[in-house]
């Protein structure tokens, strides 16, 4: 930021340009940053169906608030330059031969470095166990950012195959269901895996996205906070019906969930016996080339 201010010093005798640019920029910030935060901000997805999506929403708002001054600085500077520093008339006149100024360059480098490190720290904090923001992203077999009581979380295995999502419940006799119903206000541990090619399990409103990779157990945590439905989509190109590999999930009360899963166990009793024993990964018959 301060680079612009410093630049004016290096830019020779005439410092008014720099001051003007700074003023315009400051005014623009005063106008637009609040707009971004309080007017645009509430509309930035993902929304607040879960603790994760709420935190991700906040992250997006913070990033937007940070990006705005940078955007404005460049736009104001360029806008000012191309209006004020333009050559009027056909003749070609050379500008002042300014070859550069170490102080400005160092200032700029320092400023960008500070911003970058701040961003990286901010993003890393979002991955710590204490934070919920990063928990929704697929974290592989041994998660880094997991809730304190991860062990007691409700285990749900998400199985992707071409082109269908099915869900297996190890805590309930390994029953498998074609629909996803989750209890509200409870930590859920998704174990995402695939039977054939790569998919990506995207529960949009929940703020969960985890690639389903054959031979990999991809864990993601979420804590739903609203009674509502949510979209489930595939976010990794997986063949013909990739765009149709979507379904709708439901967040319900604990009691409603208990009755639903109980019914499912009864209904799918017969087929459950055929399922392979529950495991974190399933290896399909290698290259099944038989007709």
């Amino acid at each position, binding site marked *: 930021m301060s680079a612009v201010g410093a630049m004016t010093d290096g830019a020779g005798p005439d410092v008014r340009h720099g001051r003007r640019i700074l003023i315009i920029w400051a005014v623009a910030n005063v106008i637009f940053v609040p707009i971004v935060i309080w007017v645009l901000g509430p509309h930035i997805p993902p929304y607040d169906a879960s603790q994760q999506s709420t935190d991700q929403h906040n992250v997006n708002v913070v990033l937007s608030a940070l990006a705005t001054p940078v955007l404005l600085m460049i736009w104001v500077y360029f806008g000012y330059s191309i209006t004020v520093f333009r050559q009027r008339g056909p003749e070609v006149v050379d500008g002042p031969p300014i070859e550069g100024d170490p102080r400005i360059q160092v200032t700029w480098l320092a400023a960008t470095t500070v911003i970058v490190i701040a961003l990286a720290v901010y993003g890393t904090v979002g991955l710590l166990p204490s934070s919920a923001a990063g928990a929704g992203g697929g974290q592989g077999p041994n998660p880094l950012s997991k809730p304190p009581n991860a062990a007691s979380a409700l285990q749900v295995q998400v*199985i992707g*195959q*071409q*082109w*269908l999502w*099915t869900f297996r419940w190890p805590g309930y006799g390994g029953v*498998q269901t*074609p629909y996803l119903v989750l209890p509200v206000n409870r930590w859920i541990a998704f174990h995402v895996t695939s*039977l*054939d*090619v790569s998919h990506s399990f995207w529960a949009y409103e929940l703020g969960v996205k985890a690639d389903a990779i054959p031979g990999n157990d991809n864990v993601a945590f979420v804590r739903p906070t609203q009674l509502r439905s949510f979209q489930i989509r595939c976010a990794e190109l997986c*063949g*013909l*019906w990739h765009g*149709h590999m979507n*379904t709708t999930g439901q967040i319900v009360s604990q009691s409603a969930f208990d009755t639903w899963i109980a019914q499912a166990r009864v209904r*799918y009793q*017969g*087929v459950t016996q*055929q*399922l*392979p024993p529950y495991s974190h990964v399933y290896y*399909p*018959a290698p*290259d*099944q*080339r*038989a*007709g």
Partner: protein
Amino acid sequence: MGILVAATVLVVAVFFYIADFLAVAPPVLAASTQNGASTLTLQTVPAYGHAPEPDWVTYLGLDSNGHWHHTTIYQLPAHTLVHVTLYQFDSASGLRNPFLAQVRGTAGGIASVDGKSFSVLNGDDASHTFTVPDLGLSVPLKGVPAGAKNPCSAAPCALSFDHTTIRFSFVTPGPGVYRWQCFVPCAAQFFYGFGGPMQTIGWMSGELKVV
């Protein structure tokens, strides 16, 4: 630089070729409807037997005049009971996810194979499935037992060849386009058994156009 003109012409030519190729789609087959119920008659063939892909497994549909058509895009009336009859000439190759051995979304939650009704099939006996995920409709199709006397080699297959007959009914939803597919990895010569016909509309995947 005179090449530029030729280049432009070439671009347009290539473009139209690509567009033309990509726009092709199998024909739409309308189910025959009388007194409030539709009937949809299909068959599955282990190998189509003709160009362009003689060795691909495929579905075929029967029109009201008794002619078989090589297509998987079927048009059904909305909010109507549809009786589906499936002649199954392929042998079993087994389900990847045995959960799909469960009959779902049909009238009464059952289907019948050769007259015997069932709600769960043994996943290893499945040769194909007829599944419409968006409707929660899924029926596993029992394969012809191994060592069949006279297997069918080329479509369309007459009923004199060894086959199983699967029957079920379901009620169509409101108007819309619903994709359907087979979930048994049954594509010969393809890794994971899921390439080629499984990923090509007109063979083992298709659409139900509900109007």
